[in-house]
């Protein structure tokens, strides 16, 4: 994880073109030397059907994040199942404003997650600082600190939007696309 070392970790949306599973870059994956293609297919299927986000809610968006588990939205249908421990979570939904005091904790939690890991920036605050972006204590977008896979606009986004974001992420996984962190490492360090 060389992320924190670099001053500029912001990934531009255009610059980080998605790398598909059949991309030669996949050859750099140290696992693909061992894993044969069908196994990769099964793994992609599993990652596309099981997504355990971590319960990381800081502000208003956290209430809407709770709501997606409620009967009307019921993310359990899609295999989305909230885990408390970062070690077992696949993706971190940054639901809310990140203050300078919270930022090191968030970074720590991110580093505690097991690869492959994904980050969803939920809501205006997580994307850019939102209504508080001019403040003296608010991180202007979590992508300044960690690579973000999915941005979900809104203040707060509707639960449907969050579900859409999660499903988009799962579809990408099913297609074997790389996570933002992997793309970043591929670009900067040349390996996954």
């Amino acid at each position: 994880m060389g992320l924190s070392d670099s001053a500029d970790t912001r990934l531009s949306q255009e610059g980080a073109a998605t790398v598909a599973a059949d991309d030669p870059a996949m050859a750099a994956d140290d696992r693909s030397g061992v894993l044969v293609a069908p196994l990769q297919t099964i793994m992609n299927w599993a990652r596309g059907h099981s997504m355990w986000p971590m319960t990381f809610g800081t502000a208003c968006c956290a209430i809407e994040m709770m709501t997606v588990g409620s009967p009307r939205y019921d993310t359990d249908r899609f295999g989305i199942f909230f885990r408390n421990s970062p070690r077992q979570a696949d993706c971190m939904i940054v639901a809310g404003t990140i203050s300078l005091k919270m930022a090191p904790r968030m970074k720590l939690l991110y580093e505690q997650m097991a690869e492959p890991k994904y980050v969803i920036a939920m809501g205006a605050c997580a994307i850019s600082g939102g209504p508080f972006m001019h403040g003296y204590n608010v991180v202007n977008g979590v992508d300044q600190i960690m690579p973000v896979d999915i941005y979900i606009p809104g203040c707060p986004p509707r639960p449907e939007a969050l579900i859409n974001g999660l499903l988009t992420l799962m579809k990408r996984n099913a297609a074997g696309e790389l996570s933002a962190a992997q793309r970043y490492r591929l670009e900067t360090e040349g390996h996954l």
Partner: protein
Amino acid sequence: MAAPDPAHTQSSPSATAYKAGSGILTALGNLVGEVDTLGPGGMYCAQVAPEALLGAATTLRDSYGFRHLSLLTAIDHADAQGGLDLLYSFVRKTDGVEVALRLTLAKDPLVAPSMAPAWPAANPLEREVFDLFGVRFENHPFLRRLVLRDDFKGHPLRKGFEMSPDGVPAAASQAAISDHGLVGPAGNDDVPGFPFMAEAGGGDPLMHSERIVLNVGPQHPSTHGVLHLYVLLDGEKVIGAQPTQGYLHRCIEKLAESRTYKAVIPLMDRCDYVSSFHTELAYVLALEELLGVESTPKADFIRVLMSELVRITSHHTWYTAAGLDTGALTPFLYAFIDRELILDFFEEVTGGRMMFNYFRPGGVKDDIPPESAEKLRKMLAKFGESVDGYEDMLTGNEVFRVRTRGIGMLSCEEIEAYSVTGPMARGSGYDIDLRRDAPYAAYGRIPVNVCLGTAGDTFDRYRVRVSEMRESARIALAALDGMPEGPHIADGLPKSIKPPAGAAYRKVESPRGELGVLVMSDGTAKPWRVKVRSPALSNLHAAPCMLNDCQMGDIIPVVGSVDVVMGEIDR
């Protein structure tokens, strides 16, 4: 439901209350200086000298019964000497009279006497003033930054504090992640450690135990956001606890100073994000008082309706947490079914599910569509059954009862010492409710039943909130039925608001207690100071009392019964 009163007046605290306040301040004699009012409709305020502050405050408390510290904040003069005013306000429970003391610190260094040793409620509030304004409080037991990182430079609510126009630069954010900012700019000595931490390490000699410090939060499944508790444990026994906050400090009060009055309303929404209408309402009431305008009768009823509905959704969220905290998942799912129905109504009326931006000075933004009102009426008529369902799930549940009854006791003395308000106070049988005691909007015309507990344990706080859900549904239905015809917003208000110079402090009964907003104007289009009095902040700092002789497993349910919303606590 009584028919709406044709001779409707703005339901601000009655004029007699203010007179009494003036008399009491004068009676303090040479403890205080001149007595004036805060603003056009505002309360009486006495100038007090630093050395007389403690005497005046304790006299007010002990001789006159002003036991509730409602407000403790500072207002920057922005003069060359760097002076500021400290503003204290006290409330008497018996008649709701509120008086204020003003302590002027003329110049740097800003040093004021601390009320915290005599008045525990002042402890976090003085820390907040120290943090944001840089006032040093002498004899404060634990003067450490409350919301900002210990290595933060400057005191942001001072007028001289320059905010970068683009916010925090990326480089600063990235630098911030390298450490937790627990060390002050001048090194470790600058930051006092938590008082009870001195006892860490020592344990029960009989059991050869060793005490451990457990960090609960800021990322923990059950801290309701980003609350952080330092807990000192001896085995499973809680020896001491200290809430730490500031992980969601979003500079709302500072940002409000750079926005026009109407543009502050969305910020208020995000302050208490679980019951947005209440912060909005308190702000709009204060603004109306400054402007000298009145909202229309219909708008008053709409405000009551919305306040009560949002109270229900807030209690839904709390009820969910009450179940989850003790390990029951099912209540969450059933409560959120009903919550969604109310959010649907909000969405139809205001366009937002959680952030409404709906109240305006003089009224509300839009009228309620008739078909939505009809749907809501049907829903509310059946709401009692839903609450019966909630009670079925937890009230009689043996395990829930053993987990909550007799746990997390809060006595009335502690309630007064820590300025605890809202359902937490009512759970101990402390009979306060601003909707009844100081009616605002249309509450004066709708009878409000106050739900009281007896023992002041977690279970009673649970019972109070569940009963309040029923009561809120009843009030909402009454407001819907009694809603008069007429415009939903007063005519003739200017597009850009420039209230005359002065201050107004208005309070509403939020789901967490007494939520006040102080708005101070200097006559320009932007407020000079906006201060939100957070009920959950005071309630939260009473939590260490409640955690006395509790166990590790009790921490979460007990703190959950405070019903914290970090957005409002940290602001």
